[in-house]
């Protein structure tokens, strides 16, 4: 069973993946120098995992800032998650945004509109920093 935990840095988020629990969280800021390389361990795992017969998978996205390369990576992950949901698998995104950050809220809403097979929840939290 795949398990990964990485502490956050100035430019990379806290990451925790627990295959046994069907759970993943990104929390903090994401603007690494090389997004593909930084997330490769996660993406290598998730694309394989989403093709298996898992019971359920939840992704808590608590990013307060991310650059355009990270947006592309999130789109690819959401796309694979949505494909799995289209096959009848239980797939959930909980995207938590600061209540007053219209930029992130707008971005989350755009993703939610695009991926309609999985459950995409937008949670507003006025204390999120």
């Amino acid at each position, binding site marked *: 069973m795949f398990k990964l935990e990485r502490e956050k840095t100035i430019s990379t988020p806290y990451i925790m993946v627990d295959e046994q629990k069907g759970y993943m969280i990104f929390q903090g800021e994401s*603007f690494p*120098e090389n997004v593909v390389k930084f997330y490769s361990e996660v993406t290598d795992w998730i694309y394989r995992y989403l093709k298996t017969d898992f019971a359920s998978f939840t992704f808590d996205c608590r990013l307060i*800032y991310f*650059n*355009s*390369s990270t947006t592309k990576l999130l789109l690819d992950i959401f796309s694979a998650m949505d494909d799995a949901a289209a096959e009848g698998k239980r797939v959930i995104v909980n995207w938590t945004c600061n209540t007053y950050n219209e930029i992130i809220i707008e971005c989350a809403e755009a993703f939610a509109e695009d991926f309609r097979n999985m459950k995409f929840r937008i949670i507003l939290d006025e204390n999120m920093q």
Partner: protein
Amino acid sequence: MNTLNHGAEESYSLLSVRGAVTQSVVEESAAKLRSALSELKLSETSSAGIHYVFIEMAQNICKYASETLDGSGCGEITVTLSDGLCVLESRNCVDSAVSNHLDRHLKRITALNREELRRLFSELIREGEKSIPDGASARNGGGVGLVQIAQTAAAPLDYCFRRTGGTTEFILRATLRAIRMEG
């Protein structure tokens, strides 16, 4: 690097970065900018927008630098606050192929309204930027970043190219709203 230098009465030079722009400089400057924005008590949306545009501009300098002949990442970014607006300006040298690409891409971007920018962003990110005219920086993601800067800005982006001798300086300016928190 300077933070919070008070200039003219109603104008603040919030941050100025000049020299080699590496990832560690981007990280250090972004942390200083976040702290300076927090002191000014700007709204969450204003702070996030300024922070976002700063990092995209800085990382674009890193990307364009890797495409120049000598690979140097020298450039300059200034963040100035004035009358409820924040102006972010970046300056860096680019080679002629990149400048031609940027010129075409920015002409297209500056002609679009907010909804058209949103559609272009969505199209570029899905198609791997294939619809951007050929250009080195498009391959590295610079194209999408510029569209997101334009989406975040309160006015169309200003830009120009200054050609002197064998080099071309690319100057990009984004103006954002800088609204203070209520109460």
